């Protein structure tokens, strides 16, 4: 699949979702796994747009790339906001508190890491790179196209 580049605004979430759904279909992911992948990518993209760009008063794009191999589908998100590792935001202790007492927020990264097979982050060439990996079902591996 061709990579997708969209402006870093909340309006772009829909088209990012469509791109991820198409990638999940190409990878042969079943419905629940495809949903979780879309959720994970949406949460990370939302954080990039809201915290990386809008709240910081910056403008920039979000690049989304899907790569398939025999065993996995990898979705990579890149942005030019300030360096930010979402894994630092993960606060599982909040999940154990009654929801009335929880701070609003911080759920997105939790959902991401709980939903996917692997989540990685790196900062390369002045770009944040969030990497989300889903295992493909056994036998779905067509020749790599990504």
């Amino acid at each position, binding site marked *: 699949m061709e990579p997708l580049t969209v402006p870093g605004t*909340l*309006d772009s*979430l*829909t088209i990012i*979702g469509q791109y991820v759904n198409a990638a999940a279909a190409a990878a042969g992911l079943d419905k*629940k796994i495809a*949903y979780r992948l*879309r*959720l994970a990518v*949406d*949460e990370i993209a*939302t954080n990039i*747009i*809201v915290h990386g760009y809008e709240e910081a008063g910056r403008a920039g794009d979000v690049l989304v790339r899907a790569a398939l191999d025999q065993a996995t589908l990898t979705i990579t998100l890149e942005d030019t906001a300030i360096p930010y590792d979402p894994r630092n935001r993960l606060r599982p202790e909040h*999940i*154990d508190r*009654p*929801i*009335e007492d*929880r701070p*609003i*927020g911080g*759920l*997105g990264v*939790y*959902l991401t890491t*709980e939903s996917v097979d692997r989540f990685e982050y790196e900062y390369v060439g002045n770009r944040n790179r969030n990497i989300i990996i889903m295992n493909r079902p056994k036998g779905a591996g067509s020749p790599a196209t990504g």
Partner: protein
Amino acid sequence: MIEIIVETIQQVIVVKPAGEIDASSAAVVQQKVLPLSVPGCKIILDMSGVAYMSSAGLRMLLSVYRQISGNKGRIVLVGLSEELKDTMSMTGFLDFFTVHDLLEAGLQSFS
């Protein structure tokens, strides 16, 4: 894009969003529901038209819940898909809300 239908059935306000609830559309749903949460209100959020919801939807539900319970009202969720239930279950939201599969059961819970 999200469309929201509001109707009153047996003195219960039924709010039915149709579309996807992400960080962009969650605010639209919230703006629709908050003005309805008057003292003692009875509100059903019929989610059967929502095939996708991110954590922005969870935050919206929490804000709506706080406003409604602050006004001594009640909110019931109906029509949640398996996927939405999974997300709510992972985050502890499912046990927190009164949930029914069918709208009829939600309405009965108020009577």
